[in-house]
């Protein structure tokens, strides 16, 4: 919904054709756009201001590399500074202390502390072979301790038995004692959510801190947070003292500027990312990815990884081979539509690709959205097996039946069939041109990174994108599975 930085700068610099060093005027114009882009990405204003000042200093007088436009050059400088500020090193949770190592989880209500506690415990148990004990100090929220107990069962990590009537500090002490006596390596203490201006509750968590002297104090914060991120992070840091940040709900589609705000005002590293509700949905932090996301430049690395996970390589190979022989059935098309959905829908894919801002707008204009994908899937699944295999038999009355069965119009059915034909034709062509490699690329094999459409992309001046293919998206001209190539062969407007 918001323009990425590259687009914004594109419009500023479209007028500039000259080469050489970036002038002060150029940079000032660019910084206005940088400021807005960061604010729309939810970076807090004070952090934006300091950041922009710093980038301005760095940018004035810099030579524009021959291969890039001034806009791309500025994007690169901004990106590099952003990575630098987010922390160019990813830092793991520090367990360098005598066992049991206490870790304290703090944050606002509903940020994801309890879920993250279980995720981290599972990781430490499985990856680091640590013996972990979890304890909930949340005596406020209904069923909070029960929640942690259930999660503990799910991940195979012990939880401290629940005793009613204890204060959080008393529970914390009991947890540490149990940890010592029972030979635990790590004790993770989950706390109740609290607003950072609630003096009573902030004193409560300080009492816990003083009781156990935690080795890590992790602030768990929501990637959807807006400007308040600075206030919350500052207050928790000043009043409790944090050693790191865990950003949750990174699986959402926010730009995640809150991370920069919190890192900026506390100087504490972002240690982990929560990327889903499930107990395995936790990842190490990679500053480049988040920088790209904040700037709206897409996150190719994530897309590649996600696609690799989602797409069954063997199945892909089989499909590719079948298509080589020139048979691309409606079942194949349905399978492709499903893959797109698994990758988080069109929006999900688009959000992860660099330079797709413009394309996204075109799509919005063409009314292509996930609903359409679903409609197409519905149409195909309302066909009989025979019809899917041999669409030629689809006469008017069959089409009417399919439309009724899938809750669509006959026009929709026709459109799917037309699209299927286009795709089949295209597959054959690709097969001829690029041979098996190209087709396999289209379905999860190698294949090159497609060039972003219409030069809206990032060109040479950017940090290197990962090499190798974009599984499921390779081939020429950014071809999305199930859509017969984007933008060429793109299904027409739909009301």
């Amino acid at each position, binding site marked *: 919904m918001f323009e990425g930085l590259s687009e914004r700068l594109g419009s500023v610099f479209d007028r500039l054709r000259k080469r050489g060093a970036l002038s002060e005027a150029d940079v000032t114009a660019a910084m206005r756009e940088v400021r*807005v882009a960061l604010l729309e990405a939810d970076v807090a204003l004070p952090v934006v201001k300091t950041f922009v000042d710093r980038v301005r200093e760095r940018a004035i007088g810099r030579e524009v590399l021959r291969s890039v436009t001034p806009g791309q050059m500025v994007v690169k400088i901004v990106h590099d500074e952003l990575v630098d500020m987010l922390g160019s090193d990813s830092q793991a949770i520090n367990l360098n202390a005598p066992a049991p190592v206490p870790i304290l989880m703090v944050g606002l209500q*509903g940020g994801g502390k309890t879920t993250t506690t279980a995720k981290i415990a599972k990781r430490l148990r499985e990856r680091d072979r640590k013996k972990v004990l979890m304890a909930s100090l949340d005596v406020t929220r209904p069923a*909070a301790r029960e929640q942690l107990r259930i999660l503990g069962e799910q991940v195979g990590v012990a939880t401290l038995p629940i005793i009613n009537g204890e204060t959080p500090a008393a529970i914390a002490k009991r947890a540490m004692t149990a940890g010592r006596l029972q030979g635990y390596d790590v004790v993770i203490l989950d706390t109740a959510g609290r*607003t950072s201006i609630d003096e009573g509750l902030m004193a409560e968590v300080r009492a816990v801190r003083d009781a156990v002297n935690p080795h890590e104090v992790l602030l768990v914060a929501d990637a959807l*947070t807006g400007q308040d991120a600075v206030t919350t992070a500052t207050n928790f840091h000043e009043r409790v003292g944090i050693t790191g940040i865990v950003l949750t709900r990174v699986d959402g589609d926010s730009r995640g500027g809150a991370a920069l705000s919190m890192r900026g005002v506390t100087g*504490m590293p972002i240690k982990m990312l929560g990327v889903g509700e499930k107990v395995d949905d936790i990842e190490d932090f990679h500053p480049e990815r988040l920088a790209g996301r904040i700037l709206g430049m897409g996150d190719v690395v994530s897309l590649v990884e996600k696609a690799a996970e989602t797409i069954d390589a063997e199945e892909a190979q089989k499909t590719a081979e079948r298509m080589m022989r020139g048979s691309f059935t409606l079942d194949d098309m349905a399978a492709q539509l499903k893959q797109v*959905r698994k990758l988080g829908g069109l929006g*999900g894919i688009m959000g992860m690709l660099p330079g797709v801002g413009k394309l996204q707008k075109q799509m919005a204009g063409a009314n292509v959205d996930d609903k359409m994908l679903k409609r197409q899937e519905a149409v195909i699944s309302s066909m009989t097996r025979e019809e899917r295999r041999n669409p030629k038999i689809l006469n008017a009355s069959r089409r009417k039946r399919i439309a009724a069965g899938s809750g669509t119009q006959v026009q929709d059915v026709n459109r799917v069939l037309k699209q299927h034909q286009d795709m089949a034709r295209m597959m054959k062509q690709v097969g001829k041109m690029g041979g098996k490699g190209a087709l396999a690329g289209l379905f999860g094999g190698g294949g090159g990174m497609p060039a972003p459409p219409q030069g809206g992309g990032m060109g040479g001046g950017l940090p290197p994108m990962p090499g190798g293919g974009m599984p499921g998206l390779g081939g020429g001209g950014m071809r999305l599975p199930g859509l017969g190539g984007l933008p060429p062969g793109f299904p027409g407007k739909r009301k």
Partner: protein
Amino acid sequence: MSAEPASPERKGWFARLRDGLAKSSRRLADGITSLFVKRRLDAATLEELEDLLITADLGVETAAKLTANLAREKFDKEVTGDEVRAAFAADIAAILAPVAVPLEPREIANKPFVVLMVGVNGSGKTTTIGKLARQWTDAGKSVVLAAGDTFRAAAVEQLRVWGERSGCPVIEKPHGADAAALAFDALVEARERKADVLIIDTAGRLQNKAGLMEELAKVIRVLKKQDPEAPHATVLVLDGTVGQNAHAQVKTFREMVNVTGLIVTKLDGSARGGIVVALAQSQGLPVHAVGVGEGIDDLHPFEPDAFARSLMGIEG
């Protein structure tokens, strides 16, 4: 303990940022008053005003619009801080007035009045259900709750506690059950009990997860099989600390499940919820109530004047 980066350059950077921040929070603390002791409203001042709005999450666009309005009226005039704040608050209240619509379950022939609570993870759905249940039972209605979050650990147990607190029966199924099936059964049971209101809790979900959004759409389809009018209200619960992503949340939930109104939670914290102003302009959905704490009585009507004044830091 701390991992403060050691390089002198980095230090300089953080130190500078902290200085900047201290400056800006001082400015905030003093409010706009410090900007004017009766002085001319010039471009620089306007920019600072705009910044204040941005830090309350109104968003760049809305902040710019409001500032431009003010500029039209008052540019180059001598103004005091109080005047400016009052002018801003009035503008904001005017934007909000049309969307301040309380949520009141209507008396309907085909009981119960079904309320579906939706929203992203952790926004406050379950807690808000407890609060609404209390308000409506106090108003003499019989209320039944449905534990439609069959996914999250202890979500059912949590709602059960709210059921006890508000004195309302809770309809549940085992963890992992189909949410749509639960909703269907809950409507049957609420009807048998002749309840006035049925409030259905749902699992938190991010709007960009197509599969989960589809699941929610299915809950609604299943309800409609019994009562084509149901759900009579679909309330999107927004976390008051949310930033610009709220736009995407409202837009997508609206498209997928036809949201009829918003409740904004956690306004007792340091966040000011300014996104509501931008949403009022872009979406115009009713804002039913605001959450101001974790207690059962901490749900207040949405009052545009009070909200606008608190955004602008006007006391009382």
